[in-house]
């Protein structure tokens, strides 16, 4: 399967297979007016299977979101058809308005304007908790 290489844009590579659509949603790529290619289940020597996202524009992407979904993914910035920059990722310490607190007793449940902020509380288990009520993310 062939997808054209991009001239100026971003390639998010080495995404854990199955996570590309999660990233697509969280990065709000559906709102972009540029070509976006999602390539799923690509054979990879290192990973077995992987996903790739290609964005045909050099736009700022939220590295925290990508780091949260898959800290092992790689970001390649392409300029004039060549690799101009590689960005490394790590698990972000806080996430703002990426996750939503589902605790009905949390202050965010009744004050709509408040940002939903989650803090990394356990790096090993990748556990995030709401800074207001300490409810687990996706818990």
């Amino acid at each position, binding site marked *: 399967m062939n997808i054209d290489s991009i001239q100026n844009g971003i390639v998010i590579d080495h995404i854990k297979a199955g996570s590309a659509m999660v990233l697509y949603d969280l990065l709000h790529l559906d709102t972009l007016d540029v070509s976006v290619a999602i390539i799923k289940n690509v054979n990879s020597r290192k990973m077995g299977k992987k996903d790739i996202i290609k964005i045909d524009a050099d736009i700022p992407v939220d590295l925290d979101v990508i780091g949260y979904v898959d800290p092992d993914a790689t970001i390649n910035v392409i300029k004039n058809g060549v690799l101009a920059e590689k960005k490394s990722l790590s698990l972000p310490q806080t996430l703002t308005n990426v996750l939503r607190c589902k605790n009905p007793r949390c202050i965010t449940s009744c004050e709509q304007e408040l940002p939903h902020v989650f803090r990394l509380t356990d790096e090993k288990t990748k556990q995030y908790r*709401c800074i207001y009520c300490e409810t687990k993310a996706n818990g």
Partner: protein
Amino acid sequence: MRSVIDILDLSVEELDELLAVAQDIIDNPEKYQNACAHKKLATLFFEPSTRTRLSFEAAMYELGGNVLSVTGGNTSSVAKGESVADTAKTVSCYADIIAMRHPKEGAALVAANNASIPVINAGDGGHCHPTQTLADLLTIKREKGGFDGLTIGLCGDLKFGRTVHSLINAMSRYRDIRFILVSPEELKLPSYVKNETLKKYGLPYVQTNDLLEHLPEMDVLYMTRVQRERFFNEEDYLRLKDTYVLTPDKLKTAKSDLCIMHPLPRVNEISVAIDNDPRACYFKQVLNGKYMRMALILKLLKEAAV
């Protein structure tokens, strides 16, 4: 601006400092009677409370300060839909320090993030109630002489009981503490408190539904109320509310110097027949709460002035 939202906002050294100041207030009250002259405490209570609000207000008056008070969301701008953030900004224009209780978890943090004066969390839903923990610590210190080496029984609603979670967090920083967690299956201590505090610090604990079996081992017995307001389902509340009732008969096997505590209000978890037992410390806890709130108000106002 320094605020206290969670008991863990205070280091062990700061807890020791507050305990020492509270003891000094007890010993030398006249030294402190004008310590907060011309300062105003705003008590913003958006959830029913007798003890905590009066305790804060009494504490401020005994420090020579004044009190501005809002009680009940339906008599304030909150009833008109004002956000916690706006309320905090507004009250910052009138007062020097805020004590806030709110039914929603995290409300005090929102207030602290928006106020330009110190905020003390006086209870945010089922989440945190740090000044109750300060009262508990002073009571244990005064009754047992210190914290190290104690076996602490916690009994009742360990799931929603915010005072229990805060006390475990605070006590976990002392040496050789052992916990006995007594609750019905449905109200067991949440796994995150176990994993992130008890297991993390390697604290020994026993989890049981049998109070009598473990009562003889306890140095402190902390009873809690099953709180109706934390249940979405009235049936569950009615089924669980009378699981543990402490009576003089049950205390026969307990240590002679057991310290019986309760954050109050009690419903019927502790029989009134125990009130005159020298081991009953729950009304001393109320008084100790006022002294610790005095110490905390003093500390935060002093830090804010720097």
